[in-house]
Structure formats: structure tokens, C-alpha cells
């Protein structure tokens, strides 16, 4: 068999990555059929299942644990997640194999993860931008790394010490899984403004409601997966602590995603066809200025792919419309065609090529981009990858009023990565644990920068940067104990670069009891302050019931991921869960 019966869709997704050298599904074989979430680099998963917080979707701590750079103003604010030491615009989010990135902002909000499916989410930082399309240089967050997973049904309640609470229901049936999450948090907490005056943060509240269905049907060698996501968010954006005290703007997000993918196996070929539709709406209600700004897009995408043990071929097409007072109404279609070859033997080379094209129906300039990548993979050992990557301008870049620049070119560059494990294979465990190392050199030209030109700010292809990002992570497990530590070092000429970042933690499980602590520290960049934060957690589980308490930012001071946007000193999240049979 080439691909597993259980998760052919996932196999295809990871075959994309495999063929282009992004992920290695197993240490000693590149048989595409072995691709599965369980083969993900283990460090990206929770330190120990059940020990992690399940509150608030993915909390800031969850992202920090996974080595991400995080930009958020408050616990309930947008979570802009950067991987490989890069800004969030270089992180791709996928669901059912389709990109979720907002075409207007070029970003995906990390707070869109429904906690009912949090354990089906995977994070990858290995190189794959050349094959996944625009804006994946930093890495990929796959919201459906497991479409259904092995997790059953459960329901949970949560309460936040900063005010508010939420409820999550995960309902597993023979036909699929329904996940619902609703929460309302006030996030009132004391902080000190730049004048040293103690204030109470207001206007940082967050209301969330998310409903998601994931269905699956199998017959013979065929699998049909389908689902939808609905997201409603209404959040307060606090004003900077270096500005006058007052309530900030409000941000509203309404999103609807729906998709279907049909896969089947025929001899050595695995075939996949998918369709995806979306609508998104985002609005900002400014407070200082009487300004309401909103934009919306709607579109659909279809894809077709065939995967063979020695290669892969795919094409796709999408049509989209964007409108709203903040930018010109326009239609966009894009298409891609791509192929990859996979060698055999002890030194297994891989070669990938892709061509992506974007055209605006308003007869503006085309944004075609050809990409390529190569990989050398030593059996069971390290791998070397090289790839050309690109990032298209966003719709705001192209059509914002005022200033949108329809003549922008895509950002483009090259990246080289080496990656491996000590011991050589990640499945070889030692009592002293395991090391994973990764080094990524990246160069980008035609960087899109907004600059004032003439009467208004205009995005232009004006910048370039080079960055060398390194990561070393250690993980060990001994009896009831688990420990991990990670350090990232970045050498860069980019203003966003964070030179140092460290994360370490320990978890303990004894019988029904669990506990742990984790700390993260980050050096200052030109744009962000240095910070140090940590969390403590403890839990108890017996039969169907479990209770867990998380203390976020368990430090005496505030933490600011963005300058002058303090998060609470510490706050507690209590979860009460009931697991159904």
C-alpha cells in the first residue's frame, strides 16, 4: 500500500511535503504511505497529552511551547504566530489541505483554533514554501493534521480569573465529529501605564463562538471527508499603555469555511480531489477617530492531485471576490500546477517544481511565480533542503484605499535548511533523551514595505533581508517525569529578528495527578521588547471526570509581547471536563 486507508487525505497533504522535502514521515523510509500525524516531530506535540491547557483555543502558552514568535495584545486578542523566527505573514494555516490565510491581510489568526480539535493540530517548521504556495517560508500550522483523530466525545467548562468563562463540546459520532466552543472573557486586570499610574485594563474583552463539523465516509478504497467551520469573534483592542487611558478599537471577525475532499487508491497511485469555499468579514471600529473600516472576501478553490511513491503531480484553481469600503472591489483568480520527483536509495534526492499564477479580473498585472526545491535525505539521518519561496502581496497591498499598489511584485527568495536528530533517528530513544536540531538560512528580496510616497502611504517592493535561524531542542522522558528545553538563535539584518529565545519545562504524572511548569524567555528585537513568562499547571483525573488548573504568566510582572501592551501579571484558568464513553 502506498497510503494508509485511515488517512488518505493526510497522506496526500504530507506527500506534498514529502515530495518537496518538507517533512519526513519516518526515519528509515520515505514510503509515502507512512505519512501520518504520529510521524510529526514529537516536540511539536503537547509535552504530555492531557497536561496541556485546553482553555481558550490555543493559549499564548501553547504557541510559546511550540517555539513560535507571538504577537498579541491581550489574552483574548488576535494571535499572530510566527515560525522559524519570521513574522506571521510567513506562517501558513491549512484546513483539509486548503490554505485559510485571509487574502486581505495575508495572515491567519491563531485564535481560530477550535479547542474541540486542538489535539488534531500540528505545527511544522521545515522548509516547504516552494510547494505549499505563498507565504509558507516560516512553517505550517495544519489544523487538520488528523481529520478526526482518536479522541472521543467530551464536554468542558472553563472559568478565567480575569473574568468570564466558556464551554466546549466535542461530539464524536459514527459520521464525524462536531466541535462547539463559546466563551466570553472580560480580561479586566491591573497594569501600570508609562507614567507609572496603576490602571485597570478595560475594553480588552473577547467573545468567541465557533462551530465545526468534520465528517468522513469510507467505501472500498474511497474516502470522502467534508466539513465546515463557522467563527464569530468580537474583541476589544486595548490602547497602548504609552497612550492616554481609554478604550481601544473593536475588531469583529466572521468566517465560514467549508470543504470536501474525495480520495481513492488505485494501484500505486493515490488520487485526491478537493473543493473549498470561504467567506470572511473583518471590521474595525476605531474609537479615537470616528472611523469604521471593514472588508470581506468570498471565494472557492478546487484541487486535484495524484501521488506515486516516486512522485507527485497536482493542479488547482480558485476564484475570489473582495469588496468593502476599505479597498477597491476586485476579483482575483489564481491557479497552480506542480510536480515532484522522489528518488530512492540511501541518499534519496527529491526535486519539486511549482508554478502559481494570480490574475485580477480588473486587468491588472499578473503575479506569476515559479518555484522549485531540492532535497537530499540520508536514510535515517539528517536532510538538506533548498527551495525557492515566495509571498504574494495581499489584497490590502494591491487595492487598499488609499494607497493600494496594483503593480507590486511577489516577495521572493531562497532558503537552505539542514535538519536532523541525535540520536540519528527520532524513533531511537535514549535514556538521556533526544536532541533535534534545525538550521535555516533564508534570503528574501522585493520585500513589500508600506512607505509614504506622494500624498499617501503606498506598499512598494523596497526591501530585502537575510536571516539564519537555528534551533536546538532536547526532550527526555523517564518514568513519571518529562522534561524539555529549546533554544533558538537568529542572526539577521531584519528589524523583526529576535536574536535569542529559550523555552524549558518539566511535567510530572503520578496516578491521577499531573503537574508541570514551563518558562519561556525572549530577547528584544528592534520591534519587540524582551520578556520572560511562565506557566504552572496541575490536574486530577478520575474516570470520566478531570479538572485542571492553569496559572498563566506565573510571574510577579506583566509580560508584553508587543511594546506597551501588557498582559496580566498572572491569571488562572480552571477547566472541568467530562469524557463520554
Amino acid at each position, binding site marked *: 500500500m502506498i497510503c494508509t486507508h485511515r488517512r488518505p487525505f493526510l497522506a496526500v497533504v504530507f506527500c506534498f511535503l514529502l515530495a518537496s522535502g518538507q517533512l519526513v514521515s519516518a526515519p528509515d523510509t520515505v514510503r509515502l504511505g507512512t505519512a501520518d500525524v504520529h510521524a510529526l516531530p514529537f516536540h511539536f506535540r503537547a509535552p504530555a497529552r492531557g497536561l496541556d491547557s485546553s482553555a481558550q483555543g490555543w493559549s499564548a502558552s501553547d504557541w510559546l511551547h511550540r517555539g513560535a514568535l507571538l504577537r498579541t495584545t491581550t489574552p483574548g486578542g488576535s494571535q499572530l504566530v510566527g515560525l522559524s523566527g519570521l513574522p506571521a505573514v510567513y506562517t501558513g494555516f491549512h484546513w483539509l489541505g486548503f490554505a485559510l490565510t485571509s487574502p486581505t491581510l495575508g495572515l491567519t489568526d491563531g485564535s481560530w483554533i477550535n479547542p474541540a480539535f486542538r489535539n488534531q493540530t500540528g505545527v511544522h517548521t521545515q522548509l516547504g514554501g516552494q510547494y505549499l504556495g505563498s507565504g509558507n517560508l516560516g512553517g505550517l500550522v495544519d489544523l487538520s493534521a488528523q481529520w478526526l483523530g482518536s479522541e472521543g466525545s467530551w464536554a468542558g467548562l472553563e472559568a478565567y480569573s480575569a473574568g468570564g468563562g466558556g464551554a466546549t463540546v466535542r461530539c464524536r459520532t459514527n459520521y464525524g465529529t462536531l466541535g462547539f466552543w463559546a466563551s466570553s472573557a472580560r480580561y479586566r486586570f491591573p497594569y501600570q501605564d508609562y507614567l507609572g499610574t496603576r490602571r485597570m485594563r478595560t475594553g480588552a474583552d473577547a467573545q468567541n463562538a465557533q462551530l465545526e463539523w468534520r465528517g468522513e465516509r469510507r467505501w472500498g478504497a474511497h474516502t470522502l471527508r467534508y466539513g465546515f467551520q463557522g467563527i464569530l469573534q468580537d474583541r476589544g483592542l486595548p490602547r497602548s499603555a504609552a497612550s*492616554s487611558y481609554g478604550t481601544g478599537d473593536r475588531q469583529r471577525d466572521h468566517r465560514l469555511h467549508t470543504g470536501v475532499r474525495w480520495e481513492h487508491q488505485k494501484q500505486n497511485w493515490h488520487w485526491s480531489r478537493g473543493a473549498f469555499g470561504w467567506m470572511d468579514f473583518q471590521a474595525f471600529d476605531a474609537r479615537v*477617530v470616528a472611523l469604521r473600516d471593514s472588508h470581506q472576501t468570498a471565494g472557492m478553490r478546487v484541487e486535484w492531485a495524484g501521488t506515486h511513491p516516486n512522485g507527485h503531480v497536482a493542479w488547482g484553481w480558485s476564484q475570489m471576490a473582495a469588496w468593502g469600503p476599505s479597498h477597491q472591489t476586485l476579483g482575483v483568480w489564481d491557479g497552480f500546477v506542480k510536480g515532484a520527483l522522489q528518488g530512492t536509495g540511501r541518499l534519496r534526492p527529491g526535486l519539486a517544481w511549482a508554478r502559481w499564477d494570480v490574475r485580477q479580473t480588473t486587468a491588472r498585472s499578473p503575479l506569476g511565480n515559479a518555484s522549485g526545491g531540492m532535497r537530499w535525505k540520508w536514510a535515517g539521518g539528517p536532510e538538506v533542503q533548498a527551495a525557492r519561496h515566495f509571498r504574494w502581496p495581499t489584497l490590502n497591498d494591491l487595492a487598499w*484605499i488609499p494607497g493600494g499598489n496594483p503593480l507590486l511584485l511577489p516577495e521572493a527568495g531562497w532558503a537552505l535548511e539542514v535538519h536532523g536528530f541525535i540520536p540519528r533517528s527520532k524513533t531511537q530513544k535514549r535514556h538521556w533523551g533526544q536532541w533535534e536540531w534545525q538550521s535555516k538560512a533564508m534570503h528574501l528580496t522585493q520585500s513589500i514595505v508600506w512607505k509614504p510616497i506622494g*500624498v499617501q502611504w503606498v506598499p512598494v517592493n523596497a526591501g530585502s533581508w537575510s536571516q539564519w535561524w537555528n534551533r536546538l531542542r532536547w526532550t527526555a522522558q523517564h518514568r513519571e517525569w518529562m522534561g524539555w528545553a529549546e533554544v533558538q538563535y537568529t542572526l539577521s539584518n531584519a528589524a523583526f529578528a529576535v536574536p535569542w529565545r529559550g523555552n524549558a519545562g518539566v511535567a510530572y504524572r503520578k496516578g491521577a495527578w499531573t503537574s508541570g511548569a514551563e518558562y519561556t524567555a525572549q530577547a528584544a528585537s528592534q*520591534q519587540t521588547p524582551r520578556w520572560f513568562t511562565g506557566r504552572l499547571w496541575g490536574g486530577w483525573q478520575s474516570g470520566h471526570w478531570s479538572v485542571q488548573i492553569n496559572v498563566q504568566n506565573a510571574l510577579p510582572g506583566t509580560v508584553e509581547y508587543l511594546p506597551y501592551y501588557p498582559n496580566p501579571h498572572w491569571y488562572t484558568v480552571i477547566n472541568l471536563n467530562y469524557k463520554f464513553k
Partner: protein
Amino acid sequence: MKNFKHLIYSTLTIFIASCQPDPANPLNQDYRNGVLVVNEGPFQTGTGTLSFAHFKRSASDSTYAFLDVFQTVNGRVMGNIAQSAVRVGNHVLVAVNLAGTVEMLNAKTMALEHTFTGLGLPRYFQALPNNRVALSDWQDNRVYVLDLNTKTVVDTVQVDAGPEGMAYLPNTPSGDVLLVACSGGYSDNNTVVVLNAQMNRIKTLTVGDQPHSFAQDPSGTWWLLNQGKPDWTTPANGTPGSLYRIDANALTASLYASSADGSLHPAHLVCDGTGLVFVSDRYAGSAVRMPLGSTVWPTVPFLTGTSYSVAFDALKKEFYSGKIVDYSGPGQLVRYNEQGVALDSVSTGQIPGFILPESH
């Protein structure tokens, strides 16, 4: 006797040294001997800064700069989006826009003397008699009067939308008056509000779109620069910038010259004694010069490069231009002679938006 001579020499040396600025120590400066630059700082996630530049003018002197004297001296940041500054007696006032504050500093040491809080979106200052200062504020379209003796806001007056630059005209037939250019703020407006000494509105002048700043020439004539109204969709369809002449006796304003280019919107008017100098476009224009008496709108750059801010030191006969380098790092202050020839430059904080020359 020999020891006594040594003592005298040593004392003289120390005395002379103490009179010289110390390029290495921002805590041992006389900040009246240089240029202050108000840097906006990053828009949402940062704080404004106050830079200081001292330029070499003798063989024993040296050029040096401090990027953030406010924080260095006072141990805290200044707040979000620093806007402008003014020297009044022994004080320097800095308006911090989104922080809604005015920082009152000792002009010599930069030590913080007082912080006026509770303001809205403060913009520009105009010195008044009796150690008082007028402050324009966008939030509720007000002009505040700050008393530096009592360190209080002693008066508040409502004007038209978006009050910007102001001019104080003493001894007009209507008495002392304050002209307030009302640009519209985040929208559009085209008026100048005339306030009397009691801060009562006595007249409203209709001028060009989005009036910004005033300057007075040596003959006593006042000039008003209007930015013009931008058209965000088709920039060329914007209303062009214009120059109005103010009749101080009649308190009237009349169109003097107008730009032909509706896509450019000038700002930061200064007078160098024989001409009017301003930035041809408020975001990324060049400093241009219009000789007094000419009615031809200038288009040829007078100071090299683009200027985000411009100032003229009337005593030293020097121009200063604030330049944005890349919006994420330090800016630059360039000094020019009276002919517009660049002399030297220093680094400043991020986005240098206002320059306060030494003799102002």
C-alpha cells in the same frame, strides 16, 4: 607658589572643561546649546522620543547627538506619538499626541518639571504673554491655555475642526489676537479662527483647504500655508496646496499663490528672512523655497533629499531637515547653510517629525 600655580591651572582647566559640552554624557549637558528633535516613534506599538543634536562650530567643539534624552534624563518613556515642542523661557514643552499629555521640561537639563495630563490629541504650541502657552488639540477641537507658573490649564476654547498651527499677533486693531488654523483633523476644513486676548472667537476666516502652519516675514506680514485636500482614490484630483497672506490690521486672509499639483500637500512653513520654505508634501516631499515677492509656486528642491520636517534657525542662519530612513530605525537630522548646502548630519530617534532649533 608653584603649588598655588598648579592649583590655579587645575581650577581653570576644570572650569573651562565644565563650560564645554560633554559629548559622552547626556546627564551633563546644557540642552539650550543644540537642536531638539521630536520623534514620533512607531505608530501603535512604541513611544515618541526627544533627540538632541549639538553641531560643531569651532575647532575645539565637536558634533554629537543623543537619541532619547527624555528617557535618559527622566527614567521613563515619553508616550505614544510625540508631536511637537516649544521653548518658553526656561522650559521646553513637548506635546505627545496619543498619550494626551504635555511634558514640561527644564530647558537646560531636560529634567521633567510637570506632566499635563487629561488632554485629548495635542498638536502644536504657540507662546503667549505671561508665561502662558496655547495648545491646539484635535480630540474635541479645542485650544487649551497652559499656565507654566501654576502648571495648570487655565482656559479652554472651542474652535473649528482639527486645530493645527497657531500665530500670535499682538497689537492689532482688535487687540492681541491668536490665529488658529483649523485643518479638519481627520476630515477636512478650511478656516482660521481668530481669538482675542480673552480667548473669545471674534472672527472666522475662510482660507484654503486644510490650513497647517503660519510664518512671519521681516516686514511683519503673516503667511499661512494650506495643505490642500487629498483625493485618496485619484490623487491628482485633490485640491492643491496654497499660500494665503494675512492682513493683520483688517484680520483678513487672501490667496497669494497656489500649487498646480493637486497630488502634493505641503506643510511646515518657515521664513528665512528673504523667502518662504516649506515641505512640498507632508509625507515625503522635498523642502522647497519661494522668494518673498515671488508668486510662482516652487517645485525645485531647495534642501537635498526628502524632508519629513524642516526648521530654520534665524540667528545661526541654518536650516534643519528631519529625514525618515526606513520607518523602523533611527531617523536623521541634516544641517544646511542658508544657501541650502548640506553641512553635516546626526542620527535621531524614529520618525523625526518636529525640529526645535537652538535659538527658538
